[in-house]
C-alpha cells in the first residue's frame, strides 16, 4: 500500500493522461501475480473484485470515530478538518501525521484488513479495527487505505486509463485489453491474462455476468440535438437483469452480479425452454394485464434464496429483454445495436409471456420525442431510454451511447450553508451553493448545486449571503443557514464528502423558496427514505 500510495500521489500531480498511464504501468510491471489484481482493485477504488458480494459497510461516522480515538483529537475538530480537506482519507492521513508506528502495509495485508472489516458485524468492531490500523501504518498509506473504503481515489485516474496502463505494462494492444475487460467485466483477470499473453482466449463466460452497459441521465429533450439518430425504448421500473441460457439451463443476475435466479422461477422456466445458448440484457418487472406494475411489488421476492416448493400467490413477473450479448457461442458486444436487436427478436419470436422484447420506437423530431415521453409515463413507465444508432454494447460504461430520461424524483427543500464564487461569467458572484437538510437541531450537507437560478437572482443571493457570512474557509464562504432552495435531483447516493453521509446526484435548483424558513426544510430522514426507495438494482 505504501508503494501504491506513492504512485497515486505522483499520478495526482500529473495532468497529462499519458504520464499518468506511464506512471501506473511502471508500477504494475513491478508487481507479483498475487499483488497485481489487488493493486488494480484498489486503484479502481474497490476493496474487492467486481463479482465479490462482500461489502465493507464502513460509514463516514465510523471513520470519524476511529480517527478521534486514534489521533486523540476532539470530534468537532475532526469534523471541521474533514470538511476543510474535503476527503476523509486525506484528512485521516494528515491528522495521524507523527502519531503512527510507521509500519509498512502490504497489499495482501490491506486485503486481509478489508476482509475483516466486511466480516465485522457491529460498527464498534469496525471502529476498533480502523483505530488499530490508523495507529500502525504510515500516514500516506492510510490516505489510500481509507480512500479505497470511501470508493474514490480522486487522483484523476479513469477506468479507461487503468486499462491502458494494463496494456502498456504487459506490452499488449490497448484495444484488445479494452475488449477483454468488456467481456469479462474484470480488469484484474484481464491484466493477468495480458501478462501471460492469453488475451485472445478471454471471452464472455456463460453463467458469469458481464458488466452492464449503463445510461447517462438527461433532464429534458432539449439535451438531444438529433432525436432522429436514436432508438428509443420505455424505461421500466424494474430490476435490471442479465439472463444466461444454455442447453436447458438458465440463470438471472442483477446489477452488482447478485444471482436472483431463485426469486423468479417462472422466468427461469421460460428461459430454460429457449434453444441454444445466449446472454440477454433486460429488465425484470412486475407484470399484470399487459402493464408494468410498480417495482415495489417485486421487492419482497428479491430476498428469496431458494425456490419455494409451492409458488405462493404473488405478483407475476416478466422479463423484458432489450439486448443480446451472446448467441450460440458468438459474441455480439461489438456488433451494432441494430444487428443485436434483430438477433434478439429472432431468439424470442416464439417465446411469448413472460419473455418479452421491449418495443422500440424512432422519432423524427423533438416534439415527437416529448410526446413519446408522455406516452411512456402514461403506460406507467418511468420515462425513456435512448440508444444511439450503430452503437456497440459498452459493458460497464456509462458512456453516453445510452441516455435515460425520467422525471426527477420529488424535490427537496434545502438550506444554503456555504457559497463559493463561480467561474467565467459568474466569477464575481456567489453562484455555487452547498446545501443541507435538517438533522435534529443542526443541518447536514447533502450536496452542491451550480445552476438553475437567473443572473438577477444570483446577484441578489450574493448580497444576502455576504450578509449571512460567519466564516471563510479558503474560497468557501460559510453562511448562517437562512436561505431555502428547492432542488431537483436524479437520485441519492452514499457519500463521504458530506457530513450527512449522502449526496444528491445531479442536483439542480428549481426555485428560491423565499416563503420558507430554514426550520421548514426537509430532514435527513426524508433523504434516507428516498435512498431506500430508489433501489440500486433498478434500471439501466
Amino acid at each position, binding site marked *: 500500500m505504501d508503494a501504491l500510495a506513492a504512485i497515486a500521489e505522483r499520478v*495526482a*500531480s500529473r495532468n497529462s493522461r499519458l504520464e499518468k498511464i506511464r506512471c501506473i504501468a511502471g508500477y504494475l510491471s513491478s508487481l507479483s501475480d498475487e499483488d497485481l489484481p489487488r493493486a488494480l482493485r484498489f486503484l479502481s477504488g474497490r476493496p474487492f473484485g467486481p463479482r465479490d458480494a462482500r461489502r465493507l459497510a464502513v460509514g463516514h461516522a465510523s471513520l470519524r470515530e476511529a480517527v478521534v480515538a486514534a489521533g486523540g483529537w476532539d470530534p*468537532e*475538530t475532526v469534523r471541521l478538518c474533514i470538511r476543510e480537506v474535503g476527503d476523509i482519507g486525506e484528512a485521516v492521513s494528515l491528522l495521524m501525521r507523527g502519531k503512527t508506528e510507521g509500519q509498512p502495509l502490504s497489499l495482501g495485508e490491506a486485503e486481509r484488513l478489508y476482509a475483516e472489516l466486511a466480516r465485522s458485524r457491529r460498527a464498534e468492531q469496525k471502529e476498533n479495527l480502523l483505530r488499530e490500523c490508523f495507529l500502525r501504518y504510515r500516514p500516506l498509506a492510510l490516505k489510500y487505505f481509507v480512500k479505497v473504503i470511501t470508493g474514490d481515489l480522486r487522483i484523476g485516474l479513469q477506468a479507461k486509463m487503468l486499462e491502458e496502463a494494463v496494456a502498456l505494462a504487459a506490452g499488449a494492444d490497448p484495444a484488445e485489453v479494452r475488449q477483454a475487460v468488456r467481456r469479462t467485466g474484470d480488469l484484474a483477470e484481464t491484466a493477468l491474462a495480458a501478462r501471460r499473453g492469453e488475451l485472445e482466449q478471454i471471452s464472455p463466460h456463460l453463467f458469469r455476468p458481464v458488466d452492464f452497459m449503463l445510461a447517462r441521465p438527461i433532464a429534458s429533450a432539449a439535451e438531444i440535438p438529433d432525436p432522429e439518430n436514436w432508438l428509443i425504448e420505455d424505461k421500466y421500473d424494474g430490476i435490471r437483469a442479465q439472463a444466461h441460457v444454455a442447453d436447458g439451463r438458465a440463470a438471472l443476475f442483477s446489477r452488482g452480479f447478485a444471482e436472483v435466479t431463485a426469486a423468479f422461477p417462472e422466468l427461469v422456466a421460460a428461459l430454460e425452454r429457449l434453444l441454444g445458448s445466449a446472454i440477454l440484457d433486460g429488465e425484470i418487472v412486475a407484470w399484470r394485464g399487459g402493464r408494468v406494475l410498480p417495482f415495489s411489488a417485486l421487492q419482497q421476492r428479491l430476498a428469496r434464496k431458494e425456490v419455494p416448493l409451492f409458488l405462493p400467490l404473488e405478483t407475476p413477473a416478466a422479463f423484458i429483454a432489450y439486448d443480446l450479448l451472446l448467441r450460440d457461442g458468438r459474441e455480439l458486444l461489438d456488433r451494432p445495436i441494430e444487428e443485436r436487436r434483430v438477433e434478439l427478436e429472432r431468439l424470442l419470436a416464439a417465446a411469448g409471456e413472460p419473455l418479452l422484447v421491449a418495443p422500440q420506437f424512432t422519432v423524427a423530431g423533438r416534439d415527437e420525442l416529448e410526446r413519446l415521453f408522455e406516452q411512456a409515463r402514461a403506460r406507467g413507465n418511468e420515462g425513456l431510454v435512448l440508444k444511439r444508432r450503430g452503437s456497440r454494447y459498452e459493458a460497464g460504461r456509462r458512456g453516453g451511447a445510452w441516455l435515460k430520461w425520467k422525471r426527477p424524483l420529488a424535490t427537496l427543500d434545502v438550506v444554503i450553508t456555504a457559497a463559493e464564487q463561480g467561474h467565467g461569467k459568474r466569477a464575481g458572484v456567489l453562484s455555487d451553493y452547498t446545501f443541507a437538510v435538517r438533522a435534529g437541531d443542526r443541518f447536514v450537507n447533502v450536496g452542491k448545486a451550480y445552476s438553475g437560478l437567473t443572473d438577477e437572482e444570483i446577484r441578489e443571493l450574493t448580497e444576502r449571503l455576504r450578509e449571512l457570512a460567519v466564516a471563510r474557509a479558503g*474560497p468557501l464562504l460559510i453562511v448562517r443557514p437562512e436561505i431555502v432552495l428547492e432542488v431537483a435531483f436524479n437520485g441519492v447516493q452514499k457519500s463521504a464528502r458530506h457530513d450527512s453521509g449522502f449526496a444528491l446526484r445531479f442536483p439542480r435548483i428549481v426555485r428560491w423558496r423565499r416563503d420558507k424558513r430554514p426550520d421548514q426544510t426537509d430532514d435527513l430522514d426524508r433523504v434516507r427514505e428516498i435512498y431506500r426507495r430508489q433501489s440500486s438494482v433498478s434500471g439501466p
Partner: protein
Amino acid sequence: MRIEFSGDGIYLPDLDLWLDPRRECRRAWISHAHRDHAGAVHREVFATAETLEFYRLRHEGALENSALHAVPYGQARELAGARLTAYPAAHILGAAQLLIEWRGERLLYTGDIKLRSPICGRSTELVRADRLIIESTFGLPVFHFLDRQQARDRIVSFARQCLEENRVPVFLGHELGRGQEIAHVLGQAGVPIQVHPAIARYLPAYAAAGFPTPGWSVYEGEVAAGAALILPPRLRSSLPSGSRRLRVAYVSGWAALDNARARTGAEELIPYSDHADFDELMAIVEAVGAHEVDVVHGYTDAFARILTLRGWLARAPQQARLEERNG
C-alpha cells in the same frame, strides 16, 4: 491593559494605539506590509524599517500627512507610558511581533508569524508574555508545512525537471514574500527566471536586505522557453489553459491540501508558507507561556477551542463580534 477587538482591527485604548487597523486612524502599529494589514493610511505609523519601505511603495504619494516611525528589532521605545519592542516574526521581510509592556503587564501581538526559519529574512525570536494575541491562518491540525531546505529542494528540482522536459515551470507565489523567496532560490541555483512585475517591484528591497536574485528578467506577458516563470496566484488564469508547454507549481500553505489542485489548476503542490502550520502555532503558544490567548485571523474558533481543551484561557474575539453583528 484593555484590548478591544472589532472588524476594523485591534485597539488598545490605554495607549490610543491600533494594531494592524483596516481603516484610517490616528496611531497604528503595522506588523508587516501585506494589504490586509497595511492597506490604510494613518497619521502616525510604527513599523520596522523594511515594512515602512514596502508601506511607502504601497501608498506612493499618499503619505504626506503621515509620520512614519521606524522601530528596530529588539530596541524598546516609549509610547504613552508603555514600552514597545519589536521582535522578528519571519512572515515576510520586515514582519515583526510587538511586545507591549504596560504597568507590569506584558502583551505580545504576533501579527502574521511563522516559527520555521524563512528563506529570506530573520528567524522568529520568541519572548514570554502574560497575554498573547496570535494569528491562526492555518490553525487546524491538517496543516503541515515544509521547512526552508525542503522547500528549496522541491522548488529547484521541479524547475530543473520541467526545463529538462523542455517545459516551462510556472510558480504561483504571493506577490510580496513568497514570490521573492522563490525568485531568490531559483536565482541562487542558476535557473533563469521571468518575474511578474507585481513581484519584481519588491526584489530590490530583498536584495538590499541580503537576499539577492541573480539572473531575472521582467515577465511582460510573453512566456519564454528555458526559464522559470513566477506569478502571483491570482494571475494563473492569464496563462494559456491546457498548454502542454507549462507545468504549474503552487507554493503556499494551502498547497498542504490536495483540493488546492482543483482551486489553482497547479499540478505540483509545495506546502511552504510564510505562516506557521498547526504544530508551529502550538509551539509558539507554549513558548510564550501566556495564560490568556486571543486568536485572530483564519480558523479562530477551531484553534481557540483546541487551546481551551488543552487548558488555555483562549478566545476568538473577532469571530464572536462578527456573529453578534449578524445575529
